[in-house]
């Protein structure tokens, strides 16, 4: 035993032990329990009980498939919009010549995100509401006759998600544009490529690692979003995160919530796998 302990101490694994133990108990074990519960029947009070069943997975891919689809669709759309807005913005920041201007423009992207996520999302309720600011301005300008219903729609959720995760797109792209050597652009021009071709064949491939990282960082939290659709989506913008939340309330169904969670995690794992493979292919080129 003493010998054993000394060996553990010498190779450094004794240092790792407490943390690994903590993560196994409070991270791995709970996930295993969720996996087990997802195959149990719904008992009294919504908790899991025997016998085992796959009915919750059937419902996930049956009646709730539309919500799963909507969640993935909204997350994909969020990623695309963030990319379209974020790439030029990151490019703009990275190409400022004066260091101070670059720092200020970058800071202006980060600063709003020091505010609590709940409050940033709530701010959109003020803007998008029936008697909100956007409707107020449009009405007083006479551009619309009656208020638009913007809040409690999928559009509102999309806006909220883009707002919530845009910096996750901007920062990695900024990092890769900043590393990009602009002499390659001159070289491509000298070799006869036009601007569009130069961008598609030179600039974009060389900044692709940032783009890929940004897409993963936006897509993953968007799929699992709970606060944004909860505050902005109403029933029309319900996402899988809200559905999971509902299973833990009064008339809930924990096994169903667990099954939904497992499926959502599978979606996240698949997107991580796609990211890793794309990144590896990119690096080997």
């Amino acid at each position: 035993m003493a010998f054993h302990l000394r060996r553990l101490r010498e190779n450094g694994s004794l240092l790792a032990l407490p943390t690994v133990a903590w993560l196994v108990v409070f991270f791995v074990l709970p996930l295993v329990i969720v996996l087990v519960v997802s195959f149990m029947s719904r008992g009294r009070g919504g908790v899991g009980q025997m016998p085992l069943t796959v009915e919750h997975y059937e419902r996930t891919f049956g009646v709730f498939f539309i919500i799963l689809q909507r969640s993935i669709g909204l997350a994909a759309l969020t990623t695309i919009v963030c990319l379209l807005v974020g790439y030029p913005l990151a490019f703009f920041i990275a190409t400022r010549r004066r260091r101070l201007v670059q720092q200020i423009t970058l800071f202006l992207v980060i600063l709003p995100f020091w505010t609590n996520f709940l409050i940033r999302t709530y701010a959109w309720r003020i803007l998008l509401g029936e008697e909100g600011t956007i409707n107020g301005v449009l009405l007083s300008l006479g551009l619309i006759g009656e208020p638009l219903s913007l809040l409690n729609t999928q559009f509102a959720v999309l806006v909220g998600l883009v707002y919530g995760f845009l910096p996750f797109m901007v920062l990695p792209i900024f990092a890769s544009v900043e590393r990009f050597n602009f002499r390659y652009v001159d070289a491509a021009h000298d070799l006869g490529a036009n601007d569009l071709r130069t961008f598609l064949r030179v600039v974009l491939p060389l900044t692709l690692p940032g783009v890929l990282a940004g897409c993963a960082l936006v897509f993953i939290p968007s799929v699992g979003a709970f606060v944004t659709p909860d505050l902005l989506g109403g029933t029309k913008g319900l996402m899988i995160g809200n559905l999971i939340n509902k299973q833990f309330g009064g008339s809930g169904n924990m096994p169903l919530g667990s099954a939904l969670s497992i499926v959502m995690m599978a979606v996240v794992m698949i997107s991580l796998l796609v990211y890793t493979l794309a990144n590896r292919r990119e690096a080997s080129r």
Partner: protein
Amino acid sequence: MAAASQMLVNEQAMRRNHMVRQLGKVGLWLNPIFAYFFLWAPIVVLVLFSFNSSRSVASFTGFTLKWYNNILNNVMGAERAFSTEIMLNAFRNSLFVGTVATLIATVLGTLIALAMARGRFPGKGLIDGLLFLPVVIPEITQAISLAIFFKVAFDWIAVISGERIFPGFHTIIMAHVTFNISFVAIVVRARLADMDPQLEEAAKDLGANPWQAYWRVTFPLILPGVISGALLAFTLSLDDFVITFFTSGVGTSTLPVFVYGLLKLTVTPEVNAISTIMMVLSTLLIGISLALQGRNASRS
């Protein structure tokens, strides 16, 4: 003839390229204008309407501090009972949970970072994965897995010992430690990667035992990383809503959980005022912690 048409094609291509370039230039200027407006408009509107003299958020009618005054005097619109006391209590809960969780997570995160950087043992790849997963997994998944875990564990304890444990500070703290460990480990590992391992070996050659070498050489060198990691953990802890929401018990709501209860209902100027105060506080807090980190970085 062929040469002439070739020239024509070239000219067309150049004109097209010129157009693309002009469009690109306009786009590259319009995009940041739009993006910065998009990023800042909600915040400006929120702050502005917390000072609006009418309850409307559609048009600004005049300046007032009435809503801030209302928060301090237990008034929250006509329809709702609001207590300043409960809010301050939630804030105290947040500070308590954040402090304890940060202390534990900083110790555990630093330990694993050291083990990963200096240790020679099998299974490091697995530990890497174990540290990476809590960062990428959706919050709601982690939240419900902990909720079910605590429920199952407390049921077992009740069966075995006959004593019923309820969720409270302990469950929130355990949950916060769990998601904070990875972030602390990432920051400290980055610092360790910058450090020259020969410094430690030199200390050992000069007769220091591993304990002395650690406290006299390694620890002072990684301290800025440990502090940054702790500040990050504290910020994440104060900010967390989803995981706290699922692991808190009666009377142990943190500030975000309390605020969520307000935000979910209607938009009122008092809520705007509370949001503005929270925004100013968190900006100050992060600003101070970044300034401290900057000073640490420049000193070392």
